[in-house]
């Protein structure tokens, strides 16, 4: 009898705890769902509009479920729409951005890894000062460097060229890539480098054989950071380059402010999605490493 009473109390307690647990979960997941909707709805709007006809958009408004489905806006945006008097669509600007982002990402990441390796494993008198100076670049707004860059690119004959933008983004990116890599490499024990030095390995061999094989987490972070940063960058692209040499971000803005009175929402939506696709894909494939790598670097 006593036993039965005893189990009863336990059960009541357990039920109460269980109810509390369920309520708290419902609240948490409900809030999460609301926030994810807030973030995802604009994307849906743009995706829908890229498949709707222009008359339908003007009739039903920007935010509405598609009544029709048509792909015309996509090839239009890609290859025939007129942007700033050039009727080849986004493709030229898309490839400009690709040609800019790939070399700039690779070069700035490798330079960052190299800098980080030197600043963490081959410290020399004054290396901390150099690191501090490089860090300033992280906090410096891009606008400050705008005029100097215009001046330098003009001097070395890279004005209004994709190569000029590559150079700009490599240099501008070094602060971040160095910071990431240096902080990651600090957590690699110095004894590894010492052991390798005694083993007869030099500066480069230690880098290739020991440091780089340990680097994938931080290199993925750096590549994603640089790729999305450079791809989405607008200011340098629009100021330093003009006409068909601009990257896709500048072209998108040009497209939305073109001369005609008609707002071509369908083509704009398709163009925006074309422009957003590469960073989305990079994030999609490397996202989980991105979060993991960032926190790893942040511990030390």
């Amino acid at each position, binding site marked *: 009898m006593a036993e039965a009473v005893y189990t009863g109390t336990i059960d009541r307690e357990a039920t109460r705890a269980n109810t509390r647990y369920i309520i708290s979960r419902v609240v948490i997941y409900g809030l999460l769902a609301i926030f994810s909707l807030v973030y995802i709805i604009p994307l849906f709007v743009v995706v829908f509009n890229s498949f709707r006809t222009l008359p339908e958009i003007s009739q039903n408004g920007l935010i509405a479920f598609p009544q029709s489905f048509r792909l015309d806006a996509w090839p239009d945006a890609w290859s025939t729409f007129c942007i700033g008097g050039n009727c080849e669509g986004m493709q030229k600007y898309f490839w400009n951005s690709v040609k800019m982002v790939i070399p700039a990402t690779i070069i700035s990441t490798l330079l960052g890894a190299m800098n980080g390796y030197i600043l963490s494993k081959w410290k020399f008198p004054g290396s901390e000062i150099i690191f501090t100076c490089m860090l300033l670049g992280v906090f410096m707004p891009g606008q400050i460097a705008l005029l100097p860059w215009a001046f330098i690119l003009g001097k070395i004959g890279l004005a209004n060229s994709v190569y000029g933008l590559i150079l700009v983004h490599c240099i501008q990116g070094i602060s971040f890539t160095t910071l990431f890599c240096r902080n990651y490499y600090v957590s690699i*024990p110095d*004894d*590894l480098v*010492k*052991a*390798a*030095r*005694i*083993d*007869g*390995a*030099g500066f480069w*061999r230690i880098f290739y*054989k*020991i440091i780089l*094989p*340990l680097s994938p987490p931080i290199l993925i972070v750096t590549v994603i950071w640089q790729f999305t940063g450079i791809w989405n960058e607008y200011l340098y692209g629009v100021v330093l380059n003009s006409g068909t040499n601009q990257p896709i971000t500048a072209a998108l803005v040009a497209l939305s402010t073109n001369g005609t009175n008609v707002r071509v929402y369908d083509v704009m939506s398709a163009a925006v999605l074309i422009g957003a696709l590469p960073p989305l894909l990079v994030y999609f494939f490397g996202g989980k490493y991105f979060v993991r790598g960032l926190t790893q670097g942040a511990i030390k």
Partner: protein
Amino acid sequence: MASLTIRNIRKNFGAVEVLKGIDLEARTGEFIALVGPSGCGKSTLLAMIAGLETITSGEIYIGDRLVNAVAPKDRDIAMVFQSYALYPTMTVRENMEFGMQSRGVPKDEQKSAIARVAALLQIEALLHRKPGQLSGGQRQRVAMGRALVRDPLLFLFDEPLSNLDAKLRVDMRTEIKKLHHRVGKTTVYVTHDQIEAMTLASRIAVMHQGEVQQFDEPQVIYDSPANMFVAGFMGSPSMNFIPGEIVSDNGRTAVQVKGVDGPTILPLTASHAARLNGSKQVIFGIRPEHVSRSGIGQKADIATIRAPVEVVEPTGAETMAVMRLGDQEITGRFDPDVAPVMGETITLGFDMSHACLFDPASRRLI
């Protein structure tokens, strides 16, 4: 021939002098232990021998070659690190190959060297594993294997056992001793563990505050420590130090110390008395194992003194007892069968032939 000669080595970190003129020499095949408390400069000295740390002044010779300006890889040394420093992305085999590849050793030679060392250390089964898949003891073996595949003039060990648990540490200590016996390479071994130094080394350099306090064979260091630091650092529990005064007792030189019933006379041996050289105040040093119960296992040159027992600590094989002598505590090491009990006042016998006398001012052995 000496494999390693160190002459008047100094090292400054900024204004701090961490090594103040070190002189050492290791004969070929010798096992030298550098022992001392943390911060004594022993690891810095080892790093300087390896070439990982610059030399402020002085000279280091490996073999007959002055290596002050020689890069670590060209010094013909191999080193085992406290953290093992195994390359985490490489397998055990690749870890061992790395040094030979860097030096361009032919492939078949690499193979036979790895086979030889893997057999020696019994790590054949681990060759394809990554360091992350090894236990502490296995990592330790691999770290030694990596050093052994090369045939260097000099082995350097930097506290290689301090990351292992107590039991494994004792096992590996024996292994290292066997290994050194078999390989016969000159070795410099840094440790803060005086037992490791005593058991392994053919000669020990006891370091303190950037200076070598004493450099000699283990038994000499134990029996006649050069000063009170060495006497206190080597041996566990450490030597008892009792301040005393030199007096003449019926024509015999003796040391008078504070006992439980007032001043007690401890007659000195003739050889101690001869070395006194007019000292009036001394520090009387006696190791716990030379403190016994009076009348048990009696030898010559025993001085007796009465002392109350404050704490008794049995360890199984022997029992330590802490006793009070004036305002001083002394430790004695007893056979459990005859160990005193707490609270009892017993008559102790000091084995005077093993006693040490120190100068209170210079703290050096008289």
